[in-house]
């Protein structure tokens, strides 16, 4: 006892032990009181919202966890979550949530209202990726069951691999709010569920076989009860949200066009069709465009906002499709690009940019952060401009100027 009193550290440890031990042993197992949510789906059917959560369920004595889907309904997202908690006797833990999926019905009204309850969670949910699906989020979440093929592995791989490459620049809740507060529109990626036909299913689909996942029912309400196989399909489509409401769908080619404005997407592809110079005959040449740089300058010219995009592209032939390819063609290429080919590439890129421009001017959405850039770098001229326009900014009034430089990728 004397030793204990003299030894301060031992005394401290003993005190801490006495205080913490009773509360520690009386604490319930956290996995029994809280759902470890990995993905959330939000659907709207009629006046009600249906929330589907995909949770990791650990089992004692097993190394593997399983995934379960649970659903709940309510008049608001928060109420639906609360009802879901009541039904399953657990609270919702969003610390490990990676994806939030919503269907088309949800974004017919303002998405901000639906995301609000996620933003106000104690756990930070800002980096959860937003995904749109045309049918039901519940179906998308329910099309996987086994951990070997878990939803978040398949989808996360899809997102992680495709993010900032080719078509996608996945947006998080934080990005959504940044664009919403910044008076911009935002492009959200679309992922679909497709019924897999048994006949001819092997290899016939367009490059998404790695995304296929064994479908199946979810006893707790997630997805279809059909034994048929379903697969997640990512076709590089987008939806545009303006003021939180869905404005328009973008097809794969429209997405591709728009992405030439996106400097975050550094890897792109390009095709020059029916090329008849440099020894080629009716050749379709595919290019890998890597380390694409896009410098953006904004200014005012004669009281008209000007958006100048200077694109620098490093390209490499990835495939040449021509019936008359000969050894001479390979020798002539020799890792070089002729000035004719460079011009073709330049024209093709600018054509894509014009198409994208035409699209966002037609639908009047600003995903290229034009207003934001004008506010940041041309605040005073913008103020004057807006005074004349009754404080209404429209992308339709912006003059777009393109400059493209093409280099051979070393």
């Amino acid at each position, binding site marked *: 006892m004397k030793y204990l009193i003299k030894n301060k550290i031992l005394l401290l440890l003993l005190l801490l032990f006495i*205080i913490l031990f009773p509360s520690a042993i009386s604490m319930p197992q956290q996995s029994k009181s809280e759902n470890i949510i990995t993905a959330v789906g939000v659907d709207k059917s009629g006046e009600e919202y249906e929330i589907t959560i995909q949770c990791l369920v650990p089992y004692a004595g097993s190394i593997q966890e399983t995934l379960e889907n649970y659903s709940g309904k309510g008049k608001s997202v928060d109420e639906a979550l609360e009802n879901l908690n009541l039904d399953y006797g657990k*609270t919702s833990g969003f610390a490990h949530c990676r994806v939030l999926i919503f269907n088309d019905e949800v974004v017919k009204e303002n998405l901000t209202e639906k995301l609000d309850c996620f933003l106000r969670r104690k*756990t930070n949910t*800002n980096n959860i*990726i937003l995904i749109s699906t045309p049918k039901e989020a519940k179906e998308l979440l329910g099309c996987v069951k086994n951990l070997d093929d878990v939803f978040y592995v398949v989808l996360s791989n899809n997102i992680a691999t495709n993010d900032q490459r080719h078509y996608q620049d996945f947006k998080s809740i934080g990005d959504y709010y940044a664009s919403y507060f910044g008076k911009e529109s935002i492009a959200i990626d679309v992922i679909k569920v497709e019924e897999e036909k048994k006949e001819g299913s092997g290899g016939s689909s367009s490059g998404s076989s790695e995304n296929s996942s064994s479908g199946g029912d979810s006893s707790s309400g997630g997805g279809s009860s059909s034994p048929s196989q379903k697969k997640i399909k990512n076709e590089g489509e987008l939806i545009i949200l303006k003021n939180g409401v869905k404005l328009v769908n973008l097809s794969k080619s429209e997405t591709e066009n728009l992405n030439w404005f996106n400097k975050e997407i550094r890897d792109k592809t390009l095709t020059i069709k029916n090329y008849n110079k440099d020894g080629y005959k009716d050749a379709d040449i595919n290019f890998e465009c890597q380390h694409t740089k896009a410098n953006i300058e904004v200014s005012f010219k004669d009281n008209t906002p000007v958006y100048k995009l200077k694109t620098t592209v490093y390209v490499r032939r990835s495939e040449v499709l021509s019936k008359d390819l000969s050894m001479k063609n390979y020798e002539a290429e020799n890792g070089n690009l002729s000035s004719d080919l460079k011009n073709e590439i330049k024209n093709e890129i600018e054509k894509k940019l014009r198409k994208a421009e035409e699209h966002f001017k037609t639908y009047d959405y600003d995903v290229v952060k034009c207003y934001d850039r004008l506010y*940041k770098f041309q605040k005073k001229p913008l103020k004057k401009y807006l005074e004349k326009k009754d404080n209404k900014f429209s992308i339709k009034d912006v003059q777009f100027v393109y400059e493209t430089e093409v280099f051979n990728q070393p």
Partner: protein
Amino acid sequence: MNKTVSTRQIIFALLISISAIKLLLLPNLLAGEVERDSYIFIFIMLIFDFLVLLALLFLMNKFKNMTFIEILDHLFGRFVARCIMFLFFLFFFIKCFTMFQTTYVYLNENLYSFFSPFLFAIPLLICVVFCVSCGLNSFSRVLEFFVPLVIVGVIVALLTGVSRADFTNIFPLLDGGILKGLNLFRFANWFGDYTILIVFFGNVKEDKKFNLKVILSCLGVIVVITLFFLVFYATYGYNVVCHTNAISDILQVLPSVSDIGSFDWILILIWDIALFLCITLNFFGAYYSFRHAFFKKFPLAISIFIALLIFLVNYLLKFNVYISISFAKNYLCYFSIFVGFILPLLIFIVGLIKGGKKNEVPNQK
């Protein structure tokens, strides 16, 4: 008295004292006032703060071998010295209980769905009292052990932020006008951290480059804090108001689907240590000031008394950090400006006028 604290230990103490609380809630609070320009104004505030460091270093050099209370006795007489120490006690005490609440909220928000305030407060205060009872020398060694970990944490956070930041977010510069920055005096409670040096007066090991090392290190910390504010705003832009725990939230900029997972949890744990060290340092300040303001006997009883007082104030405020923030911004700021900025500069001026020639003041011990 044995001179037991090395230059490195003092630098570490200052580093923790300056940065622990500023890199947590302050970026969010400042963004609420001055938005994207918070890094400009924090830099100005830190430079003002730095003047206090210079003043205290001057006193430290001029009155070598003297403790702070001895300097005050020498300059102002016994009664005024005690009054000044009482003001410092209040200053450190306020810092302690606001930090205490901030730490509770930080843990409660990030690691637990619900964390009993009693279960948090009692073990933490026991640890703080234990550290104080072991003395400044032992605690300085604890600092040497943990502060490198905190430095690594800050560097990782900063680099992660830089990798995902969009620096166009900081434009247009001075959007709300420079006068808007005047409002920041209301955040004085989050500054004045160099005053912790008073605890170390007369207790520093001889080092010829002491001043240079301390000044350069503190300037380095000022640059890092300013950069952190800059990167934090560049990373989150308009969303910065949604991020109350800057140091760990900056790591959440990594996409949720990245393989790293909840990377921020590592930093949450590191920063809990930093906050504990910061609370203990300010507790040392309160304990030191209380003893010299009132009586020196029963040191353990004094530290227990201060701990109970911190607990009681927090209990009355229901561990609600937002009540404290509002109170600190609206009322305590005037007191903090006086004790954290004006008082050290006044002591410096009196020391300059009255103190006699440098190094000529006799050792009064």
